[in-house]
């Protein structure tokens, strides 16, 4: 079957099998491999993308459900080569180690800051509770989101 949706700001079409997940279509049809597969069961958060502005684990969404939706992946955050403030904050705070959870954590943080521009520490931890990270111990990810919130709130 064929689906149409908005991917990182551009209208796209894809020929897919109805049982394919959005994750597989992003990675295999569009080769947007920044969205990672960590478990395929919605348990790790590595495949988090934005669907109509909400954070969604793309391994649990069937591709046909994306019909007509606006989908943003990690590649869509730094269009034109300029890093998004969240991405810059992840770099500067040392929130990246192996990096496999990073795109998902960045996307969850993006969804959080869109809804709640000045979250408290507990709100940040809750927002990324579904993004498992085995390397960092989360402290620097939390700091990165705090830093991004400050910088986005107070643009220089």
């Amino acid at each position, binding site marked *: 079957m064929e689906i149409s949706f908005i991917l990182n700001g551009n209208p796209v079409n894809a020929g897919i099998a109805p049982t394919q997940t959005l994750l597989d279509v992003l*990675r295999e049809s569009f080769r947007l*491999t920044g969205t990672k597969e960590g478990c*395929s069961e919605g348990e790790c958060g590595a495949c988090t993308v934005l669907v109509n502005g909400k954070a969604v684990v793309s391994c649990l969404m069937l591709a046909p459900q994306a019909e007509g939706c606006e989908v943003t992946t990690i590649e869509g955050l730094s269009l034109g080569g300029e890093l998004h403030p969240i991405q810059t904050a992840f770099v500067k705070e040392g929130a990246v180690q*192996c990096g496999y959870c990073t795109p998902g954590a960045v996307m969850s943080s993006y969804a959080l800051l869109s809804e709640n521009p000045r979250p408290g520490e507990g709100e940040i931890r*809750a927002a990324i509770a579904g993004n498992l990270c085995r*390397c960092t111990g989360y402290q620097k990810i939390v700091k990165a989101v705090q830093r991004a919130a400050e910088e986005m709130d107070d643009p220089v």
Partner: protein
Amino acid sequence: MSEIGTTVFRKDARAKVTGEALYATDLFEEGMLHGAVVRSPVPHARILSIDAGPALALPGVFAVLTSKDVPGKNEFGVITRDQPVLCNDTVRFTGDAVALVAAETREQAYQGAREVRVAYDPLPSVFDVESALREHAPLVHEKGNILKHVHLEKGNVESGFPEADIVLSETFRTAPGEHMPLETEAGLAKVSQDGVITIWASTQSAYRDQRDLAHALGLPENRIRVIVPHVGGAFGRKDGITVQIYLALLARATGRPVKMHCPREESASFFPKRHGTLLKYKVGAKRDGTLVAAALEAYYDTGAYAVFGEKVMGAGVEYGLGGYRIPHTQINGYSVYTNNPPAGAFRGFGMPQVTFAWESLLDELAYRCGMDPLEFRLKNSADHGEEGPLGQIFETSTGLRQTLEGVRSSPLWKKRLDLKTVSDPFKARGVGVASCIKGCGLGIGMPDFAEAEVQILPEGTFVARVGVTDMGEGIATTFCQIVAELLGVSSESVECIQSDTFLNPPGGPTAASRNTILTGKACFLAAEDLKRVLCETAARHWGGAPEGVVLTKSGPRMEGRTASFSEVSSWMVEQGKPPGVRARYDMPVASRPLGYGLPHRIYSFASHAALVEVDRLTGQVTVLEVSAFLDCGNVLNPQGLEGQSEGGVAQGIGFALMEKNVIQEGSVLNNKLSTYIIPTAPDMPAVETSAVDTYEEAGPFGAKGIAEAASGSVAPAIFNAVRDAVGVRLRDLPLSPEQLVEAMMERHES
């Protein structure tokens, strides 16, 4: 020094936050097939027959391979090659590999794997070390169920224990555990026209893999090329063969590129885990707290195959009595085969298990002596130049005492009595401390060296080519800092190119807290040599003495003349010089060998203090604060150190309170992230990290490795804090809230 000791952002961070960084799972090739493994559903059996017919009849299935299709030696293993690539006549654990399937899609490959019909004749199995050691126990391998026994003695425990006023004997158990790297085992293989098989793999050990691949494929090593893309976490899991041989076999047999990407359940069920252990300790001290004698019997369940079993147990032996002065010691270590899934390397390499038990026991001993647990440790900790518990000499930087003094001066420890106060009557709080010791490097008898090549590029920037892999810890950035510091340039103009067995010099595995010292020092030496070459080149071009040339950030200078690095690079070509120099560094070896590859010469130490809250009704333990004091020598990158420390604490908390593989009759029951629980962001307390002031002469700029020690003493600090909070001590890890509630009730009743 401008590059060393300051935070340099990871060189790969930008590629990772944008999603550009490619991992093995992200590789696609035109016309590629997908591979899957047919695995044994039973823990121990003879293979009667294999029928690939039904699988081959499925749409998309391209090939099925069995042991007959392994052209070289059908075996692999890091030290003991006891694991078949594909089982020929016997399977030894649930998940043992029997056949391989290649198909057009990943789904078809796994469907094909389910349709390969294998007939088994079950054999008796054994699932725990005690049963495995019984007379007439079923044999996992013909040679017997003891893979290795290590026996070490110092002084005389027979006369030592009677000298003690207080003697404790305790048995501890630790559960097998799962690494759960976010990226599972994955790779892609391709055969090129010249017959070279290239394997892109998520691995920590490209060069050893190349050797093992050549062995199994019956090819010379120069026909096998291993390249490592970004690695999505490993922690020991990927230190060796996972899917590499399967990929090469499938690519060679089908003539098409083949990719494998293991689903989470497969990853968490069948690849080497952290060893479960049974640890029997006895320790004696004088009433004043002086340690007199200690004995340890350590049993490590290596599962069906050795992997690293003998060495992991050896590490348990080496670290099982910490870094303390003890005149009389005796240690017996056993690495034991069972029909459980194999166990291998996991951050700490056998050390966290014994550290949990030993540091719990020492804590109890301090209570019995009526001493503060921290003062008790300080009283017994060995210093530089002194003899350790095995009879090894601490002949290099030894910071155990400084890490303990760090804890003593920390706000957490100073305020521990106030912190215990809690208004909720159903809650209790406590503070605990523990220490650990971990050697840097592989130990005596294993080749332990690394090479590095530092090159100047025509544009005047530099490249460090190394044989090891940054698996997330940030070591590649550290190498750039080292090279930049020596050449006097910014680390921005240095790039690190990692594992490619055809293009880069060998570096051994990314493991054993060895890379800061080994590859780091090789980079140091190569950069130093390249600096000499650059100065000589400029001097020759300008007609002067090399001693008169000074390197500045932009290039060489001599008596008012300046040039850019790019110009020097072209002069090197004119003068017929190669663009780079290579250096090698060998891990220094202990001057007093103890046998069995023991001991190490260089050790890192750590001490952790933890504040916990215990729910008296549910037994739930929450970690509220952790302070880490690390002896890592001179700090090269503070942000990198904090990253190692905070991640190490998270893994330590998981190890202490959450993580346990439930293995029933050899089957892993919790092989998902929803059933095998690892710490999430809300589980993590504030972590405060400090490095103590030590300097390791052997390491680059005084540094040594800390990856493993940074995690090692977290769990016992938590258990000791629980003891401080509620007065009871548990001896099984991870801590079970049910067990804790029972223990609290028992204590209440008595």
